[in-house]
């Protein structure tokens, strides 16, 4: 298992190099000008000097390797230094946002907690809704519960989050006035009352994303349970005189969870992607919003960094999913 994991980790390196190169090229070749955001009054010669200092006129491969070194070595060290206080970060240049002139990593560190809060909570809420839903739906296949559940999850799965988001705002914020429509990221939880405010403002984005996640995962859960409920070993468990609860929640569930857990792990990066839209709708200033603003402003370093982070997440969670599969299913031994 361990050697398998290590081998997979090593194999991930060329994949990530390739992805990073593509990201670098795509963003590089797009016709956005890093000085476009500067005031129009700046004369063309100065503009050209600024471009020169940003290194945009070097050969592409040189730019790539310089950038790659910053991305995978210097910036992570800065991040570690920020967290631990160890003086390990190199003094050289950093990846600087064109728009804000501050290091991209600092922006990401500022934005990450909001995204993690919203995405993380909504994913957990989604899983907590999805698992019982899928289990009961499968166990009571074709019952009213199953049919209503199937219908809702079909809707939840096929309606995009920007629509449900706006719908929720119209219903719960505008008409009913229960929750604020905008997520205030400066809000700090210090006591019970401010905690209630936090819960209220996070409910809508979490519900929107959570429902979407729940409908997807509950489909998997149901299908996986159904696959297993008809297996011979279930009959054996019943023939042993075990109660239905043990049969379903121990024997069947343990088997059904294997593919579901893998899907849950695989989907985590996708949830980050999906959060971009939800963050936009609810004005959460997380990573997603950072990315959108950067794209609109032609802020190449930010777009590149965020894209690379997403790529790393995808490759990483693919690996985690594979390893989990091996851990959960004793029939699979990779070594």
């Amino acid at each position, binding site marked *: 298992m361990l050697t398998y994991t290590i081998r997979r980790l090593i194999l991930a390196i060329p994949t990530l190099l390739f992805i990073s190169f593509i990201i670098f090229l795509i963003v590089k070749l797009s016709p956005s000008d890093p000085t476009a955001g500067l005031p129009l009054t700046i004369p063309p010669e100065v503009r050209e000097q600024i471009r020169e200092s940003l290194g945009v006129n070097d050969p592409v491969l040189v730019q790539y390797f310089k950038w790659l070194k910053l991305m995978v070595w210097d910036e992570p060290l800065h991040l570690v230094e920020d967290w631990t206080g160890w003086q390990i970060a190199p003094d050289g240049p950093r990846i600087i946002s064109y728009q804000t002139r501050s290091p991209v990593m600092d922006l990401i560190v500022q934005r990450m907690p909001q995204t993690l809060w919203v995405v993380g909570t909504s994913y957990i809420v989604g899983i907590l809704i999805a698992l019982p839903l899928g289990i009961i739906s499968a166990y009571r296949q074709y019952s009213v519960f199953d049919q209503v559940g199937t219908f809702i999850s079909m809707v939840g799965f096929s309606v995009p989050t920007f629509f449900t988001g706006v719908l929720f705002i119209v219903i719960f914020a505008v008409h009913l006035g229960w929750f604020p429509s905008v997520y205030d990221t400066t809000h700090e939880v210090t006591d019970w009352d401010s905690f209630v405010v936090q819960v209220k403002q996070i409910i809508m984005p979490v519900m929107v994303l959570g429902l979407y996640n729940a409908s997807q995962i509950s489909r998997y859960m149901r299908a996986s349970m159904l696959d297993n409920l008809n297996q011979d070993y279930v009959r*054996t468990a019943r023939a042993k005189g075990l109660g239905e609860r043990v049969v379903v929640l121990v024997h069947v569930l*343990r088997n059904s969870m*294997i593919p579901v857990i893998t899907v849950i792990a695989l989907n985590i990066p996708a949830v980050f992607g999906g959060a971009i839209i939800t963050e936009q709708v609810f004005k959460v200033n997380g990573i997603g919003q950072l990315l959108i603003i950067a794209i609109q402003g032609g802020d190449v370093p930010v777009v590149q960094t965020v894209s690379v982070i997403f790529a790393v997440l995808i490759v990483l969670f693919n690996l985690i999913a594979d390893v989990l599969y091996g851990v959960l299913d004793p029939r699979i031994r990779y070594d």
Partner: protein
Amino acid sequence: MPDGATPFVLDVKDLKTVFRTRGGEVHAVNDVSFTLKPGELLGVVGESGSGKSVTMMSLIRLLPMPPAEIRGGRVMFEGQDLAKVPEETMRAIRGARIGMVFQDPMTSLNPVFTVGYQLMEPLRKHMGMDKAAATTRAVELLELVGIPDARRRLGDYPHQFSGGMRQRVMIAIALACDPKVLIADEPTTALDVTIQAQILELIKDLRQKLGMAIVWITHDLGVIAGIADRVMVMYGGQVVEQAPVRELFANPQHPYTRMLLETVPHIKGARAEKLRVIQGQPPILAKAPESCPFMARCPQAFERCARQNPARYDVGNGHDAACFWDFKTGAPRDV
């Protein structure tokens, strides 16, 4: 005989099981009656779809309900009617007082739990053993069914065992709580010939040691001849003939049984052929039969067979057959 006491461990009367499916009802078990004495081995034969499994599964209510429905009959076991007892009582009997072994050992064990866990489950549930006691007993059981290195193998998963070894594990599970009755539904069909013989030997041996009564479902008349005390022949969801094993082979009364025996070249020793070689189609069980179910394929069929479903007529020597034709006189039975 004192109140409630009977010479039988199992006394089944007029058992009737129906499946309600989209395409209408399937009358899988029609008024089946039979008895089982303590320590007796009853062989059950009949072609595929004749209702052998459904009959035995109905006894211990192990069928999915719906679609299955037990329409009537009584199943006396240890002074209780299993058709009427609450589910909880039934669960205390399943796997404790009545053990089951199924056809396919490759799929009958749960792939994600160790063999030890699966073997200890009934011990802990029915006998209230703690982990230590259950482990000791589990080792004993594995040794009893001839699994070498038993203690170490408790921690292995089913996929680490061969087919024959898995079937031994299944037998150990079924016998874990020292049941009064063991129902074995084609326990050797899925195994290699040599392994089949080993499992047969094992069962014979265990029967000597433990003295439980056994219901042995099979297609293989050779197996029946080798181990059964009594044989019950099923056709179209009915018992068509029943007799002590020698009597049945020497003096078959039902045309179906006679045809079955003709298709077996050597009863003693040599392996019997499968039963499917009989010409014609099995009956469609869409409604409770009002004529003899074997009529369409019966060489002796005459006018009365179309009007009435024959009852089981006693022909002496503990032998009965459900047929209007009397081979002794070569004429219709005088009833």
